[in-house]
């Protein structure tokens, strides 16, 4: 498989044409490595790669690169996330080299939530480059073996480059264009924002198929099981760019209180079933926020186990 860009497990699974399944894990707000290792163990063998979030929601957590390195030690493949909010291009390039030397092979490039949301709203933000430019930076490092300033790199990092796409943020008309831009910039795979509005997502994928985008890049559909009606309401109202249809909230409200979580998982499983046959969708990205221990069960019920092992 010499034509692999990174040789990551995720890349191999996708390239071999399997329906990919990725997970997500937020590092702790502290140095509790044991807890982190515990979370990783739930995911081992259950997903193809695990996203390691980078100071998510602009709240300080254990660094994404350190958590990714620990994940490598645990035998789970990380998808290292990097946001543009906290680093300039110097810090970014040195961290990219750093994670590569620690065995990281996937990297997701993100703008990052504005620091206004987080626990250090007084911080000076960086946004030296944006997520699009970060994608092209990683691609340049990998494919041209050059830093951003064109200096040669002695052993370039070989990373499978990921990007995020939110089909539900406004203006909708531009979303597929922005996806096209990210692919043009060098994204090898794209994970979407949590999908609840299936109608709108079908339309998004249809457009992406029409534009030939799904042939150039692997699209993983993002899902997050709803745990409660409160969570659904919160996501619908408070989280920017999230589209939770009234019909889903109604459905969750329609079951007994102690069965809401199960109903949330059922909806998620129905979605996965549809994604499996949806043209242009190459896999699912499951963001089970602080529910890592339930991922094996979801994977099992979704018929996604065992995961393919590719040498």
């Amino acid at each position, binding site marked *: 498989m010499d034509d692999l860009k990174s040789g990551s497990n995720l890349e191999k699974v996708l390239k071999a044409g399997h329906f990919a399944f990725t997970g997500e894990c937020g590092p702790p707000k502290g140095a509790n490595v044991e807890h982190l290792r515990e979370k990783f163990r739930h995911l081992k063998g259950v997903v193809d790669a695990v996203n390691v979030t980078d100071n998510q929601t602009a709240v300080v957590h254990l660094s994404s690169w350190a958590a990714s390195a620990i994940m490598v030690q645990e035998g789970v493949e990380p998808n290292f996330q990097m946001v543009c909010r906290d680093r300039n291009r110097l810090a970014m390039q040195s961290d990219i080299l750093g994670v590569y030397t620690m065995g990281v092979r996937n990297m997701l490039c993100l703008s990052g939530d504005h620091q206004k949301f987080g626990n250090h709203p007084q911080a000076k933000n960086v946004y*030296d480059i944006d997520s699009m430019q970060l994608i092209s930076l990683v691609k340049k490092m990998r494919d041209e073996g050059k830093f951003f300033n064109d200096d040669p790199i002695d052993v370039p990092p070989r990373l499978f480059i990921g990007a995020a*796409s939110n089909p539900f943020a406004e*203006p909708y008309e531009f979303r597929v264009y922005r996806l096209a831009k990210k692919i043009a910039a060098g994204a090898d795979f794209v994970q979407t924002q949590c999908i609840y509005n299936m109608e709108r997502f079908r339309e998004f994928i249809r457009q992406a198929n029409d534009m030939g985008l799904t042939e150039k890049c692997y699209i993983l559909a993002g899902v997050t099981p709803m745990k409660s009606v409160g969570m659904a309401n919160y996501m619908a109202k408070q989280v*920017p760019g999230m589209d939770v249809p009234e019909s889903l909230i109604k459905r969750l409200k329609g079951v007994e209180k102690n069965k809401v979580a199960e109903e949330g998982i059922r909806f998620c499983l129905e979605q996965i079933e549809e994604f499996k046959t949806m043209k242009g969708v190459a896999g699912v990205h499951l963001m089970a926020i602080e529910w890592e221990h339930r991922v094996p069960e979801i994977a099992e019920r979704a018929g996604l186990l065992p995961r393919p092992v590719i040498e």
Partner: protein
Amino acid sequence: MIVADRKSIHEILDMVKDCSNILVVGCKGCVTVCNVGGLKEVQILAATLKIARKKEGRPLQVDEALLERQCDPEYIAMIQDRVNDYEAVISMACGVGPQFLSEAYPNQRFYPAVNTTFFGGAVAHGIWEERCAGCGTCIIHHFDGLCPIARCSKSLMNGPCGGSDHGKCEIAKTVDCIWDKIVRKKMEQGRLNDLLQVFPAKNWQTARDGGPRRSRREELIQNG
């Protein structure tokens, strides 16, 4: 123009708490236009300071002056006869004013009465908004005259980010998402394809990141 807000009266009182006489200097430039540091505001500040100190039983003598601009040495020179007659001087100009004063009169103490905030303009009576961040290399011709550097909360050049919602920025419902406006304007004009190119990273050397900046106009520089 440069937009500023006046500091709180408590903050200003604290700056001059040891003084018994001060001079308040206004500016007829930008801070007059945004109703912060012109004649009227100088008078109000002077009166407020006097009243507050009188209440404390420690009267403060406050004199007033108004300069054409505080960002030009020739106008700064106009108070040279009296500037040292006071224990301190409060400038109501943007941050440039107290610095020009301070450089011109090294023996005097100068305090800023305003917080200099941004380059912007009046969008409605009494409301000013940021429009430019003075990045030093203007690129707004690519975006139909709308600036993503100053007006996108993340200075994205390839936005809109995933947080754009009903035309508002993810940081607050009161803040417009400039990328929403850029995209809509392009759509209206049938030129959305303009935005398909990936705009390269910005060279911030011309912005503040390149260190303090200087503008030279050879034809205006007089010899001798």
